[in-house]
């Protein structure tokens, strides 16, 4: 039986279709980036980065939003990293594979699946109202921690599990305890992978809007303490655009946000490259 389409034709057709798919993916990315940069370029000046906004952001700069974003990331980082790595160490090294680990892992997966707006609402009810943190850096940072915690637990656990078992055996055979083995051999070996995961987690958090609009507030003033409200960059551009304050300023803020995310991702790649060389063979 002769096939309807000859193998060489289907081969060529497949190649063309795959090429088209790849091109669409790349072009979409380039188009979005190009469009935003072109739109935002006219407002991008040094004073845009270093000045406070005037007239609700229609004029002036975005410095308080940049500072606010950094403050939020700091709180998120300082809370998510120790808790996330601690949980990952427990899951990967201490807990026996069984019902308990499955329940914890399932819980972590579920947490990862909660829509960010719901986490925002919970952050508002629990952190801002119940714990009395109000609209503040603390509430916003902790709510973002809830959001990226599952991610950090998952990557850290995988990095720990990727450490060759031979290293653990070697450490035990030298008379080291479990904790000495974990803290001196396993964790340092897994750190490059964990760091990359944490940085990418921060990259997710930095662009998050729904979580912080209910928790961090929308103040355009410079924060002076953890309990001050701030307006993070993504929320700032959301307000600029949705309330028709200034599209130009919104695009300008977008460019700044994109550059921040790009820098974060490049840092992750650089760390992976750097440690890739030293990585354990076998």
């Amino acid at each position, binding site marked *: 039986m002769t096939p309807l389409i000859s193998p060489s034709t289907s081969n060529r057709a497949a190649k063309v279709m795959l090429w088209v798919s790849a091109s669409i993916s790349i072009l979409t990315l380039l188009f979005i980036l190009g469009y935003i940069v072109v739109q935002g370029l006219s407002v991008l000046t040094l004073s845009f980065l270093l000045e406070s906004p005037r007239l609700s952001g229609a004029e002036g700069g975005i410095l308080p939003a940049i500072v606010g974003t950094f403050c939020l990331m700091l709180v998120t980082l300082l809370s998510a990293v120790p808790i996330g790595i601690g949980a990952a160490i427990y899951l990967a090294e201490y807990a026996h594979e069984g019902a308990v680990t499955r329940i914890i892992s399932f819980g972590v997966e579920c947490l990862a699946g909660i829509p960010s707006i719901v986490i925002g609402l919970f952050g508002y009810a629990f952190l801002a109202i119940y714990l009395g943190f109000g609209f503040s850096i603390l509430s916003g940072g902790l709510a973002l921690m809830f959001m990226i915690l599952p991610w950090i637990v998952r990557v850290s656990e995988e990095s720990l599990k990727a450490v060759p078992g031979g*290293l653990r*055996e070697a450490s035990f*055979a*030298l*008379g080291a305890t479990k904790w*000495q083995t974990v803290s001196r*051999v396993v964790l340092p070996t897994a750190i490059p992978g964990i760091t990359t995961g944490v940085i990418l987690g921060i990259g997710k958090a930095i662009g998050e809007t729904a979580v912080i609009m209910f928790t961090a507030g929308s103040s355009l003033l410079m924060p002076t303490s953890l309990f001050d409200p701030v307006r993070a960059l993504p929320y700032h551009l959301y307000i600029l655009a949705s309330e028709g304050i200034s599209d130009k300023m919104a695009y300008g803020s977008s460019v700044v946000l994109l550059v921040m995310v790009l820098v974060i991702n490049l840092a992750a790649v650089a760390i992976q490259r750097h440690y890739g060389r*030293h990585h354990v063979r076998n």
Partner: protein
Amino acid sequence: MSEIEIESRNLDLWYGSAQALKAITMAMPEKKVTAIIGPSGCGKSTFIRCINRMNDLVKDCRITGELLFEGTNIYGNSVDAVELRKKIGMVFQKPNPFPMSIYDNVAYGPRVHGLRNREELDRIVEESLKASALWNEVGDILDRSAIDLSGGQQQRLCIARTLAVKPKVILFDEPCSALDPISTAKIEDLINTLKHDYTIVIVTHNMQQAARVSDHTAFFLLGELVEFGKTKQIFELPEKKSTEDYTTGRFG
């Protein structure tokens, strides 16, 4: 005849419901090399891993019988496996240096056991690397990553790391199976030197190696100890037919 350092009495071991060792009874003398030979899956590695209680780390592993070290049953209630492993070191099949500097690898054991004094550590690192015949090659690159060393150097580093803890016994679990012939010869020379100070038990699938380095040889088959005796006798005048078949290469 020197004194008995390690003695196994009716040692049985199960992984879940599968019995991997059956009534192993043998005595390993002090400051001698005891080789354990046998085909893959005969339980030789399982047995050696009983001696420093590495099998504790294996889930569903159950042991009965006695294993005496310096007269004490190491599976007794009062024995702390962590303390035991300071006295009974182990070198593994695949070189497994830590991904840190050469110096830190060797200093790992002493540091874990609380030594902080830098001069003392320097001295132990130098001594251990000299004793493992590696000092001439790495003495001036101690800060270099251990991962950059060759396979044979890595294995000698692992030996140095074990020596740094000052054990009485060193267990070698097929230490040369991942190495080339020249590196293998170096490790064998080293074992011949080390036996003056340490009791050595070596698992090997290489019969020539057993014949070259050991004083006593045990032949394991299907979880049982078939024959144990002076190496010369095991290789030249074995009592059991299966021992002769194995050492002459008729199976295994």
